[in-house]
């Protein structure tokens, strides 16, 4: 029963690159089929200058690196929405606020490659994301403390990185509870 984490945060960052962001291309792609490009993951485009289009993060970053596009700030990644999310996280102890599954990974990639999208808010947004993560992790930890035996625990709206953090410990603890309980079922409360 090895309890290694099956994914590293770097793996999760790789998965997050499939999530969709909006960009404003500064180039046009003249192809036959409505100037969209076909990839295994789907067709992206059409790319026309100054017309926003949705592409996966990896493509957005690749285009941005060549100065071919401008990545737009996602709706949920601005100061007001994040502040609201942070307040909700703080006010409700039992429920997690609904955020994108890969919110930590996406924000990290965007903070690295699309600094311009945030303008002067960059530091503030970074700080808010960090605060939200901190609050959520402490809530998760408080939730783990109520575990008293092999039972089901409801964890809605948990993000990928957070699942990954608690997985080895949580799984190991549940296994151990199960092992002890299976020996002596009648001793359970």
């Amino acid at each position, binding site marked *: 029963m090895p309890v290694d984490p099956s994914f590293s945060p770097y793996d999760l*960052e790789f998965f997050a690159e499939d999530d969709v962001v909006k960009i404003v291309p500064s180039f046009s792609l003249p192809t036959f089929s409505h100037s969209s490009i076909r990839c295994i993951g789907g067709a992206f485009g059409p790319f026309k200058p100054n017309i926003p289009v949705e592409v996966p993060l990896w493509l957005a970053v690749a285009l941005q690196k060549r100065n071919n596009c401008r990545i737009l700030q996602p709706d949920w990644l601005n100061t007001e929405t994040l502040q609201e999310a942070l307040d909700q996280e703080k006010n409700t102890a039992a429920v997690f606020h609904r955020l994108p599954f890969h919110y930590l990974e996406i924000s990290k990639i965007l903070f690295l490659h699309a600094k311009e999208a945030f303008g002067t808010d960059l530091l503030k947004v970074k700080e808010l994301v960090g605060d939200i993560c901190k609050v959520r992790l402490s809530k998760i930890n408080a939730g783990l403390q109520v575990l008293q035996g092999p039972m089901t625990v409801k964890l809605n709206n948990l993000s990928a990185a957070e699942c990954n953090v608690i997985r080895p410990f949580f799984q190991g603890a549940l296994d151990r509870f199960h092992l002890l309980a299976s020996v002596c079922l009648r001793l359970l409360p």
Partner: protein
Amino acid sequence: MAGGAVRGARQGGDYYSLDAVLAEETLIPCMFKCGSRGVGRALDPSSGAEDVKPRAAAELPLWMLQALTSRDMLAVKVPRWYGEKMRRKIQAGAGVENLRLRCPYFYDVALALHATDGAPSVADLVISTFRSRYKEILTKAHSNESPKEMARIEALLSVEEAALFNAGRASLDALNRWRFGGRANPTRTRAKRRLDGAPVNGSR
């Protein structure tokens, strides 16, 4: 982690688990119901006689117990670390007890003992121990305690608990390393420079 170590090598469970093997080396106090010939010095090199008399007390490793109890040759006593005194200590405060010192494989040995002679009191004690220790100290694996406090906690844990605790810490450390920069594993040159005391991002 030797999660299934209870099933042990004997019953074909974790045959290759080192922890399962080590857990079975734990000495358990027993009493011989009938005498045995010629094993006195093998069990205890300082023993005066070659033969073991009936009602002689001895400490036998866990792996011998099942074979001997199934032939009704042994009466197994409850080891002191599952005794009444320990029970009172656990009730008073499970989180301060040093299990590593008492019995490094506290849980696995208890489950194996329970399987051998069905001592319900031991299983009962062990379940309540794990429940309160989980709440009191194991969940601190995910909290931001100082390294000193972490080392103090780790010294108290049994081998099974330590595996759990360290797994929890490792995953949190991995997340923090990823979030706040730095490589997952330091490269050779970086590690070397750090050892030499030179600045890591130093002048080139």
